[in-house]
């Protein structure tokens, strides 16, 4: 709990009952929650080390209600935190003591599916997996597949620009969303993008995706759906060490192959997964690689043999090609269960999410071992090897005084290491609360201020999801200051806001 949240606004705390009453006038029935016990389930998201009950929870079910709620809060200067399914691992949906928590869970409808144009229009509370379920009967699916897909909402995916094991080939959320309906903090409803590609004007849709609930509330999403690949095959590869596994990954890509997925696990992760699901992972290797190819049968059958050859050339000591769906799924079972499996090694684990240039992997793993010894905490690694996105899982025991703080310090060191190696703080989980104070490791004050000016264009009073992403929130008036020469603006005809 090393991150300090903004000091709650005393007026909002004092006016809690009046705020709840005003929200009830907008959302009748059981859509407003202010009973302290009933607030408890909302007090954290997937970053469970941080907890804070919200001021009140409101659960609207129409865009009109969302608009009215935001308009009222805007007029009253009340802060709002949007929430989807609450699976964020960076604390993006962490409530604030003085803010209304706006839950989008009632937006559950699939509104339109068009197979000719390959799009689906859905409400933001629909889960990621439910989109695929809605279209799979016709042979389609929605490509981005975060491991949390049974629970996380598409609205949350849009806000976090979530990825999955297939995003090297199929892209992150941003590459698969065509449009959104968005409600701004002042209640205005805008449509960005839509059914066709590359709409005119600034790509506001592009910047709303990944904006972590800071720019607006998403009330409808148009996504691209894809025909389900005819076949998928996987190969399970064991290497003496991560260096050879990394060389194999590099050669696969150098030979022009972009696999559907390419996942690496280190020794602790392999052992934990095997103990948990018993799928026959080799235990005498230093690194395990699962490579999956999908597409037409002829392509899969060709590529899987090529990858097998490349693995052999790079010193793989285990090479097993899946010959059935059962076998392919077994290869994945251990990887998919890696988090809960690692969770059995220690009372708690802390999941990190940095990206590095792939060639730096051996250096990063070596340094991580040193850090592990320094902090006296274990670490297991799962790695989206194709795109360099690293998920170190730090093992700790929250009941031991000081261990959580140590785990956080270890995590921060890992993320700084990623930046030092030419990488970034987060590949898919978002900055949220968790990495907020590390932003200066990657960006200068000028860079951060420029990002914040964008926030000001959407939400000049900084009421939407404050305390997230930016280490320090500057007042918009302060950021907007421009140099005035000789008492006049350079271009008086340009409107200023």
């Amino acid at each position, binding site marked *: 709990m090393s991150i300090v949240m903004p000091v709650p606004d005393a007026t909002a705390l004092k006016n809690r009952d009046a705020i709840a009453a005003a929200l009830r006038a907008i959302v009748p029935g059981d859509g407003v929650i202010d009973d302290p016990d009933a607030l408890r389930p909302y007090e954290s998201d997937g970053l469970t080390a941080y907890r804070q009950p919200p001021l009140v929870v409101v659960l609207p079910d129409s865009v009109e209600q969302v608009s009215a709620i935001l308009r009222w809060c805007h007029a009253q200067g009340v802060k709002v935190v949007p929430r989807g399914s609450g699976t964020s691992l960076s604390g993006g949906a962490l409530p604030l003591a003085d803010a209304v928590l706006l839950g989008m869970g009632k937006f559950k409808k699939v509104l339109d599916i068009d197979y000719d144009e390959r799009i689906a229009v859905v409400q933001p509370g629909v889960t990621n997996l439910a989109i695929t379920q809605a279209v799979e009967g016709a042979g389609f699916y929605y490509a981005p597949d975060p491991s949390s897909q049974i629970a996380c909402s598409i609205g949350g995916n849009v806000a976090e620009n979530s990825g999955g094991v297939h995003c090297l080939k199929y892209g992150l959320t941003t590459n698969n969303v065509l449009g959104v309906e968005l409600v701004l903090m002042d209640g205005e409803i805008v449509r960005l993008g839509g059914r066709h590609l590359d709409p005119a004007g600034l790509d506001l849709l592009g910047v709303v995706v990944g904006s972590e609930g800071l720019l607006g509330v998403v009330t409808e999403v148009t996504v691209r759906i894809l025909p389900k690949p005819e076949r998928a095959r996987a190969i399970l590869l064991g290497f003496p060490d991560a260096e050879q596994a990394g060389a194999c990954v590099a050669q696969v890509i150098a030979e022009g192959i972009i696999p559907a997925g390419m996942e690496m696990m280190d020794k602790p992760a392999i052992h934990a997964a095997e103990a948990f699901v018993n799928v026959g992972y080799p235990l005498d290797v230093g690194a395990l690689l699962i490579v999956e190819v999908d597409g037409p049968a002829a392509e899969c059958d060709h590529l899987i043999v090529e990858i097998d050859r490349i693995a052999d050339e790079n010193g793989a000591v285990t090479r097993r090609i899946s010959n059935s769906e059962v076998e392919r799924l077994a290869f994945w079972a251990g990887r998919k269960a890696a988090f809960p499996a690692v969770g059995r090694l220690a009372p708690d684990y802390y999941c990190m999410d940095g990206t590095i*240039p792939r060639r730096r992997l051996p250096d990063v793993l070596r340094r991580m071992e040193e850090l592990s010894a320094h902090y006296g905490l274990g670490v297991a690694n799962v790695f989206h090897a194709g795109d360099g996105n690293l998920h170190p899982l730090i093992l700790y025991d929250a009941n031991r005084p000081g261990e959580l703080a140590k785990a956080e310090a270890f995590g921060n060191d890992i993320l700084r290491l990623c930046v030092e190696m030419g990488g970034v703080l987060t590949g898919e989980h978002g900055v949220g609360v968790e990495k907020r104070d590390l932003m200066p490791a990657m960006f200068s004050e000028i860079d951060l201020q420029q990002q914040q000016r964008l926030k000001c264009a959407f939400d000049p009073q900084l009421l939407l999801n404050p305390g997230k992403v930016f280490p320090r929130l500057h007042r918009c008036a302060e950021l907007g200051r421009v140099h005035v020469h000789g008492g006049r603006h350079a271009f008086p005809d340009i409107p200023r806001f």
Partner: protein
Amino acid sequence: MNQVQPDSAEQLCDAIADAKRDGVRVEIRGGGSKARIGAPREARIVRTTGLSGVVAYDPAELVLTVRAGTPLAEVEALVAAERQMLAFEPFDHGPLFGAPAGAATIGGVIAAGVAGSGRVTAGSARDHLLGFTAVSGRSEVFVAGGKVVKNVTGFDLSKLVTGSWGRLVALTELTLKVLPRPRVSATLRLDGLGPAASCTAMMRALGSHAEVSAAARHPDGPTLFRVAGFEPSVVARCALLSQMLREFGPLQRLEEDMANALWRQAGTGSDLDGAMLWCIHVGPRRAPEVAARLASHARRVALDWGGGRIWASLDDPVVPVRSIARAAGGEALLLRAPDAVRATIPAQHPRAPGVAALEARVRRAFDPDGVFETGRFLDEEPAHAD
């Protein structure tokens, strides 16, 4: 001084600060291949061509960092030598205006959000810009994004500057995602289909396991499909496509040179003669309706992106192309027109008032004084000299 050519980001900063002090607007210009898009205007031209060259290229990481003024042709040759490509298939627009190809810069391509036929499956320019360095209208150098293929740290400003037409920032350095070039690329041709049948065939192909990477209808009539990848896969998918589309007629595989020429005409608007050139974006199912309404007016019409992009050249400036597009839920970009027409019809499709106001606030967030507002897009307050 009406044109300056800075050699560094710092000099570019100074150029923008100078312009503000002198009370003149700035037009950032790469090769100038699209200078004739938008309204005629007066501004100090700041050329990016002095900011040229490769900063870093690591083929194994699929990442390329280049300065913004680097010629597109140079970037393409560089990645081609490593059997890689810019998958959004950018192209040079000089020929649209009767100029030779070769002037386009990578910064201009990104700033205009240019993408070719492969866009429909590989994504647009926006999907391939990973990070950048730029000078804002505040004359400050800043960076955004990163130099790795997967990154969600901070707002995704790379999306925002792509297609911003030099109205937010002057880009100085770009980090792009590159991808392996397919080993084999086959073009199959289907003749005798009108726009409606062609769109049906293209949508069916794009939604199938044949995994076509591009589908277009050439202005002379043939419908084109591209199937790319590894040899055994291409062979199998071509067979699947032929079988799947047999009710539309026989598919014929084209020689590479012939295929490239046809794709260029169907996918880049070149060789569409006529005083006016429009580019319409629409949901592909409504494309036949747009094509039908344009038929009696247009000289040449090409369909790309499976019908999602329609190129139309016309002689008559009063044809309501924009309302035809809007009626089908689409929008229209005016690429080429006589000066008098460009002075009154905005190049870009107008946005809904709420979105236009939000865009204006976003522009002011990067350019508080409006130094980049040259009046080119006819959507600002009148940009007369003070």
